[in-house]
């Protein structure tokens, strides 16, 4: 297990040294600019705008990082042959994949925590105080992290058998389709015959990112039920675990030419 930790920490170190966390600077500029602007032009909806904009930015920045780092996690190591000196040690292939997954997830969690501090700071700037309903912002951030968990596992799955470009296309497509998973399920419910079967299959196969997106509700100060939190947690963990198992199964059989 310690080897998983070493691979994860090395992956995290790579992301940090590749200046991935520099995106925080862009985020800070965007958010502070928006907060100042909103404070000047909007009346009574400053909070709504800052929460909406802040959480959407957290999500989008994270998605871009998850896809663009995730797609190269395995393929880059094969291409540069750095994997040879790792797998010729007492490191099992599944340990390598799981370590990479935790490394990327860890990077995104740190990134999200930094951005969350920025969101709360902007919120404090425009509202001058925190409200009890602001705790739901933490739930929305938690759901965003769950999205990253799924996305990281999917990019790793694609990265274990395909080229970085195709992996990026697959992962981004699944993110977009998954963001409309609830609509897809609604469409399946209204369809008949073969179309219904296909739509239902697709709706349950793609990750349900729309259930993990509660930014609108949180911005309108609506509460998030404990049941949804439990359901989303279980769903994200199960989905990621399955995707990681798939990545391991493929990678175990792969020839590192």
């Amino acid at each position, binding site marked *: 297990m*310690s080897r998983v930790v070493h691979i994860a920490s090395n992956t995290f170190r790579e992301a940090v040294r590749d200046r991935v966390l520099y995106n925080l600077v862009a985020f800070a500029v965007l958010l502070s600019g928006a907060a100042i602007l909103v404070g000047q032009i909007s009346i009574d909806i400053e909070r709504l705008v800052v929460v909406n904009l802040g959480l959407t930015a957290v999500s989008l920045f994270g998605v871009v990082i998850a896809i663009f780092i995730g797609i190269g996690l395995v393929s880059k190591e094969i291409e540069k042959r750095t994997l040879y000196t790792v797998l010729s*040690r*007492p490191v099992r292939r599944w340990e390598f994949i799981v370590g990479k997954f935790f490394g990327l997830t860890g990077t995104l969690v740190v990134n999200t925590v930094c951005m969350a501090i920025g969101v709360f700071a902007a919120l404090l700037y425009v509202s001058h105080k925190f409200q009890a309903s602001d705790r739901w912002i933490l739930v929305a951030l938690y759901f965003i992290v769950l999205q990253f968990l799924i996305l990281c596992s999917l990019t790793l799955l694609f990265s274990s058998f395909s080229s970085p470009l195709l992996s990026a296309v697959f992962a981004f497509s699944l993110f977009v389709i998954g963001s409309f998973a609830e609509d897809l399920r609604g469409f399946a419910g209204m369809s008949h015959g073969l179309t219904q079967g296909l739509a239902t299959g697709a709706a349950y196969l793609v990750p349900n990112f729309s259930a993990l997106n509660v930014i609108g509700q949180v911005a309108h100060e609506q509460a998030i039920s404990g049941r949804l939190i439990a359901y989303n947690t279980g769903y994200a963990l199960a989905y990621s675990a399955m995707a990681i198992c798939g990545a391991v199964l493929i990678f175990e059989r792969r020839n590192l030419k």
Partner: protein
Amino acid sequence: MFAIETINLEKTYAVGFWRKKPRVALRPLNLAVEEGEVFGFLGPNGAGKTTTLKLLMGLVLPTGGTARILGKSINEAEVKAQIGFLPEQPYFYDYLTAKELLEYYARLSGVEPKERTGKIDAMLQRVGLAQAILHDPKVVFLDEPMSGLDPTGRREVRDLMEELKQQGKTVFFSTHILSDAEALCDRVAVIHRGELRGIGRVAELTASVAGKVEMIWNGNAVPAGFSGLGAECHISGDTIRAALPEAQQEAALEILRRERLRLISLTPVRSSLEEYYLQKVNSAAKPAGVAQ
């Protein structure tokens, strides 16, 4: 127990768009390397040397056959703790310093923190080799360790390999630099087009060939009588070099004495590893069938 043993180890890649076309990278390979031996794995580019090493490292999966290292399957994690591997033209994480890189590899190999510090400091010079030996493996695999090195670097690698041998380690290295193989190896194997063509002790392969001797003396013309001895003579400046059957040695010396010519050297002709290598590589495909 052999340090390295392959039993009908083979690899065929499926190539083409539909992956239906087979491309043989390694034909059934039977090889055994004794513990403490320096073993050279020779062959031209594309012969199957790297494929063999990757199969032994578990980086590619065999199509058939098995391989054992120190008597255990190559898939067992304990075996990996006992081996070191230097890939051909290695590339390392460019975001890590040399020290961080070695620390990372040491952690993955399970080297205790106390042992790590001293070893790493001493090994920073040659990171590639260092990462392969820092965990004190019993068997070391080196894929073209001299390629891309300057003469000093080559010398250092040779010294290191000799040191490993003195420590009783088994060294399996691939190369097409035959002088290195001749200088370092106890035994060598020649592989070509994925097929083992020959294997043997370097000393035996380079032993006297058919009792020939080489004579070198000062002179401008080949003395009369040499042609009758079956000698092949070459004139270079004011020296003449002749290769002739050992049985004619005394007769040739008598001619030189009679002609009052100064003999510079008289040595038995030895086959070089290069001759053996070229003979095996150029010969028609014929499995060596040698087990050890």
